[in-house]
């Protein structure tokens, strides 16, 4: 799954080193406009619905956190 998440993220923001960035939101690497694209792609590709309450920086600061969120919503 991590690879698929990375592919989605790199398609949206090809200029970002997602493997190494650990504070994607807190450091302002991803802006709010990136988030909606990411949420839409995750919802469509993983058949989940990311809720307003899930739009927390901690859920999007790292690739690992995003994978964890997707897994949680798939359960």
């Amino acid at each position, binding site marked *: 799954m991590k690879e698929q998440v990375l592919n989605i993220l790199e*398609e949206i923001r*090809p200029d970002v080193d997602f493997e190494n960035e650990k504070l994607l939101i807190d450091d302002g690497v991803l802006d709010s406009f990136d988030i909606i*694209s990411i949420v839409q792609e995750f919802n469509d590709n993983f058949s989940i619905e990311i809720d*307003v309450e899930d*739009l927390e920086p901690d859920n999007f600061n790292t690739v690992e956190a995003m994978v964890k969120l997707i897994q949680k919503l798939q359960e």
Partner: protein
Amino acid sequence: MCRKRISSLQEYQERIREAKREGDTLSNCYLLPNALQEKIDQGTLYFQTLSQGLLLLDDRDTFFRCYYFLPETEKKMTPVALEKDAVIEFPFQGKMNEKQQRQVKMIEELGFSLGRESSMMMRKGEREKRSAVQQQRGEGHELYSQKCSKQRQEIQYAQQEDAEQILQLLCAAFDPLYSFLPSQKELWDKIEKRQVIAIHEGEQVTACLISNFEKNKASIEQVVVSPQQRGRGWGKELLMMYHAKYAVEASSFQHWVDIHNEPAVNMYVQAGYEFQSRKANEYIKRK
């Protein structure tokens, strides 16, 4: 139904939960808690219930930026009445899928129509290495100043006293519904940070470029050339100075472009920019 101010993050979440009680919703809302809190503190965030779902309204003084939470239903939406002009931004990747097309249909049923189609353009920063050396030596800035001064124009960082003229130029050139125009305070801050490059003819500002820089990423917010000065290459001059300014730090240069603005698209393509798969349509509704 009149709009009602949202007074806390909890109230915002409760409103969204209510909208979702009837089932899955479609939304373009991408505001993170800190951005939401800021708008709530400023008293600019409102909700307005619809025949189905709700609209979140960010009051931008002369217009509303709208975020929707609409039920996934086949039932037709009823047009909404709003107190001001309004815009809905709709970001997507590549080509719209079926679900996104359905959202657009609902947006149109609410009374909005397509205003602008934008795409992200990007240029990698590696190309700037040569300019970086120039900038470190101070050559870049000198070169542009010299070239411009031959034509009685000077290109340099804007000063605080230019702010009013720059705002006038921006307001005359852009529809605020689309353009995220800076407030006077935001412009002052940008001038202070040397993020605004201006071309002067005497005391007159004839063109300017407003930029931003975050985490290795340089971006253009607006470029404007006064109508009398268009077609003389000032946009290109501003772009060259912008590239030189961020040459050392930026790993990429990117910004949104109206895909139907051919002169702008051509200028960026010539400067090495390429279209990305990220797109955004703006749907507008006049009062």
